[in-house]
């Protein structure tokens, strides 16, 4: 309401400002005062137009016009055209300016202060903008009424009454008279109740829209209040849904004696679907993600085992890899008699004995076995195959040859 009052105030201040004559006259015509609006339907051209223009109009009329009547007609039409033109110019120049100005809280605050001591304008609502809006509202209500099945006449009546009442209700509410109305005007209430519900809805719609339209630039507190609906609480006297007073009376008490009959897969699949559905958009932290990877087999399972998915080697004990020379003991490779006696005791294993041999083949094979035992990349089976190859390579002939060559070499060494 403050805003509309300030519009009136501004227009009046415009009067005292001594603006253009046209502006002044039009502001009177379109300003806050409804009486002036109705009373002065014909604007005095002298107030709107300059004397020079008026003179020019007279000249034109005199020059073109024939008899007196014709001249008068021509003059009026020219003047009305000029006035309407002036009005348009005024509107286009001021609409943006004023509306923008009123959106500025600073200006509003100033205007509020200025307008406070002035008397509230009872007909401030009849601002031109509001009036235009009300006409539109009437049209809207009419349309809605026709849509909901009223005849054109009824619709017209409803639209007129609804808008009128809405306007009044809004005004009254704004002026804090709502309480008064509630207590005093019972008659109105009765009428409202008597009205058909369908019709009442149209009235309410008109009221809502009128409120929004007329006081759209509410203070933020009011805007917030408008957003908040009524707070409804639970009714303590409402009969409980969780007691057993009201029931179907089919099953008598405990049903644990009854048989549970299930389809089986159906319930399982439904449960699976529910659990799948409950995953939302997947893991919520990195550990959950790892759980998922573990289940899918994309991550090594805990506890960490570095032999995970080792394949055929999984079942092979570590010593099979280390003591590969055991195979040599059962072979027919040379094991010199002396070798067994060299160690520190008779409890030596065959392999230990082999290590201690000093024949060239035995020595070579010792090196092969050590090399293989240190290789982590070969399977036991492959290591065995390796050794088997050497065993078959050093056949009796090769052994003799090696032995001969070895002796020759030793002899040469002794000679030198």
């Amino acid at each position, binding site marked *: 309401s403050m805003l509309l009052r300030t519009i009136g105030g501004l227009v009046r201040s415009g009067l005292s400002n001594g603006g253009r004559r046209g502006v002044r006259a039009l502001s009177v015509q379109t300003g806050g005062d409804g009486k002036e609006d109705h009373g002065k339907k014909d604007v005095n051209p002298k107030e709107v137009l300059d004397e020079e223009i008026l003179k020019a109009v007279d000249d034109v009329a005199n020059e073109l016009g024939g008899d007196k009547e014709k001249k008068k007609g021509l003059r009026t039409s020219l003047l009305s055209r000029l006035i309407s033109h002036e009005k348009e110019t005024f509107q286009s120049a001021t609409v943006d300016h004023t509306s923008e100005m009123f959106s500025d809280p600073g200006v509003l605050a100033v205007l509020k202060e200025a307008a406070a001591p002035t008397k509230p304008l009872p007909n401030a609502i009849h601002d031109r903008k509001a009036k235009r809006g009300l006409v539109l509202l009437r049209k809207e209500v009419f349309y809605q009424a026709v849509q909901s099945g009223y005849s054109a006449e009824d619709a017209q009546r409803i639209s007129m009454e609804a808008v009128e009442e809405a306007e009044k209700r809004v005004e009254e509410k704004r002026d804090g008279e709502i309480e008064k109305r509630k207590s005093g005007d019972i008659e109105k209430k009765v009428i409202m109740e008597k009205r058909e519900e369908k019709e009442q809805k149209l009235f309410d719609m008109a009221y809502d829209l009128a409120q929004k339209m007329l006081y759209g630039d509410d203070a933020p507190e009011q805007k917030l209040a408008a957003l908040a609906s009524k707070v409804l609480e639970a009714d303590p006297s409402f009969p409980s*849904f969780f007691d057993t007073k009201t029931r179907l009376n089919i099953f008598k008490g405990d049903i644990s004696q009854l048989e549970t009959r299930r389809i089986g897969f159906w319930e399982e699949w439904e449960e699976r679907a*529910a659990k799948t559905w409950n995953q939302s*958009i997947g893991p919520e932290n990195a550990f959950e993600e790892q759980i998922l990877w573990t289940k899918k087999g*994309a991550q090594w399972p805990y506890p960490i085992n570095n032999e995970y998915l080792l394949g055929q080697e999984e079942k092979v004990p570590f010593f099979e890899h280390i003591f590969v020379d055991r195979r040599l003991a059962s072979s027919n490779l040379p094991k010199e008699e002396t070798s067994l006696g060299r160690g520190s005791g008779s409890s030596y294993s065959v392999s230990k004995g082999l290590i201690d041999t000093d024949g060239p083949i035995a020595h070579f094979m010792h090196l092969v076995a050590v090399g293989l035992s240190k290789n982590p990349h070969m399977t036991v089976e492959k290591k065995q195959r390796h050794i088997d190859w050497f065993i078959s390579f050093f056949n009796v002939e090769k052994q003799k040859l090696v032995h001969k060559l070895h002796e020759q070499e030793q002899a040469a060494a002794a000679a030198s």
Partner: protein
Amino acid sequence: MIRPRLLALRSSKVMRRSNQSTEAPHSFNEIRQMIPTAVKRSPSDLLSALSSTVGKDTTAPHFQFIDDPSMIPSTLVTRKSYYMAKEMGKRAARQLATEWPTLFAFDRDEPRLEVFRPQGNPDPLQMEPTEESLVSLIESRCVKDACMLYERMRSDGVDISDHAKDSLFALTSFYNNEDVPLSEVEEWHGLRNIALIEKTPWTTAGVADLVYESLPPSSLRKSILISALCKHSSPSSIKRARELYEELKKEDKSSIPSRTYAAIISTSTWRNAIEILSTMKDAGVRPEESVWNALMQSASKIPVYKDRMNALRSTMGEMITCGEKGSLSVFNSLLTGLEDDKEGDKEADKEKKIVNSISVLVEILNELEKIESIEIVTSNDSNFFCSAMYIARKAGNLPLARRIVSLYESKKNTVKLMSLSNEGAFYSSFLLLCSIQVQSIDEFYKMYIYHVPRVVGVSKGLCQTVFTRLEATPHWPLLHRLIDDCISSRLITDIYISNSIRIALINTPLQSLSPSERDDYSSLIPRLVSIWIEFSRFTGHMQRLQTKLSPFSISECSLLLMRVGEREKAWHLLEMLCEEGNTHGEDATISAQGTVKAASMNELLDDAIRRGHAENAATCIQLISSTDVNKQRLEQMTNTVISRCGLTTVQARIVSTFVRLREE
């Protein structure tokens, strides 16, 4: 670390005791340390234990969205597209690996993990038509493929055992001869989230029907078929289900499973439902959760509110009598059954109905708060929270809404809302309620940063509500956060939101801010202005993205820049308005419509006069004169400028003539 110490302890004791030779042997036994046998744990137990120690970080987005900070989505739409992009990328890679295994022929992974070597599903038209192939397809839930193979085998006259046929019948009847719906796809969360759950009517004479006919009749098979006909209901399938049910009832009603009773109840009217329940009782079959849920659904169909409420109430009473506690989906059916929003209702009636719903909801919450843990039972369970929040919002009852949220967030609840669909709606209803009902702006600020953008996407509606709230009670931290959210969600380019931002910034009482807050304010404004300018410069082929500046916004921006001491930028921005090229033509960055804001211009003019800057003052007068028609005021301004800015006679004449000419 403990063991060596213990051993050391033991050895010292042993040494000490060995001196006292009499006690030595049994005292040694006494202090023997037992090494416990290893506890068998599953591979994920350790991870689950670790995961249980991780709380929810309410300042970070969901784990799935943690990425490059500039990529983190902040609106519901961007969240969806981000997640789907990620998921679709994965799917494309998977498809590529499946279709082109030769591209990955040189992998030497040791050990070789099959999960990284996706295999395509075998083609049912190429497969060997044997029972093993059919069973393998059934086990991998390829419904349509299994149907095709079955048809092939049937036409080839291949014998199939009853066992395999039963499996096929189960699969095809449960899924109505269609592939497993997206809502049940385990791996693709995004697809599941956004997939529409469409109920397809029963396929008559499909493979399920064919297999059923080829199998010897049994009550279990008949029960499965009835359940399937009701699950994938169409008028004809319901009719057939009823016929089968009547047959089965005559044959052996005690053999009908509870699920089948539930299926037939859910498609019946209330009166029939009661009859079926009586049959169940006579047959001695125990009603399970699904039966109560079906009864609720059947009761919800009663058109008259009062009768419906009575039916729902007596169903609840019966359920409680039978010792059932009810599940979330039963409660959801109850709440939706009580929902009644008829066009013709009077306001008082509507309120009464809402009050009834709230009263029931409070009772349900009382019950749920007593339960130790809330487990998922059906896919529909999470809807309970949405229905409850909807009622609380309708009633404008914030304490109730808070109770619902705390129940949902409590550790005992394992039922989750869908992140990409109903979770956002649930929390935004709550936040909107808070924005209106929470009195303290500080408290609302906390709630805002707790929810946005983590669970509530930034939206225009939400921003407007918060701006309204800020208009009533300015709060710099909230405004700052809101503006940041608007930037990250690109709402900053929205014409209404940018307007609200500027107004809120202009109205911010600078003197009440702390020095660091003032610094934030000062650094924020140039950033905002440069964003708006940048978006206005998208001309030519980028025009799609352009948001032009307007004279109104420019005057506000200039004022804001001036307030934070960026005078040069402010005047430069304002001068843009005076250049014709900026407002007209294809490369225009400023819209030609609208006018400057008078209040801002006055403040700018004052500043120019105070500093005695003639050029800036003249710019202001030129811009003001384009809107202000009040000659006297313009002349006053001009006179002040002439006297305070030290204009030369010629300059003064130019300015005053300009004003005069303008006026005439």
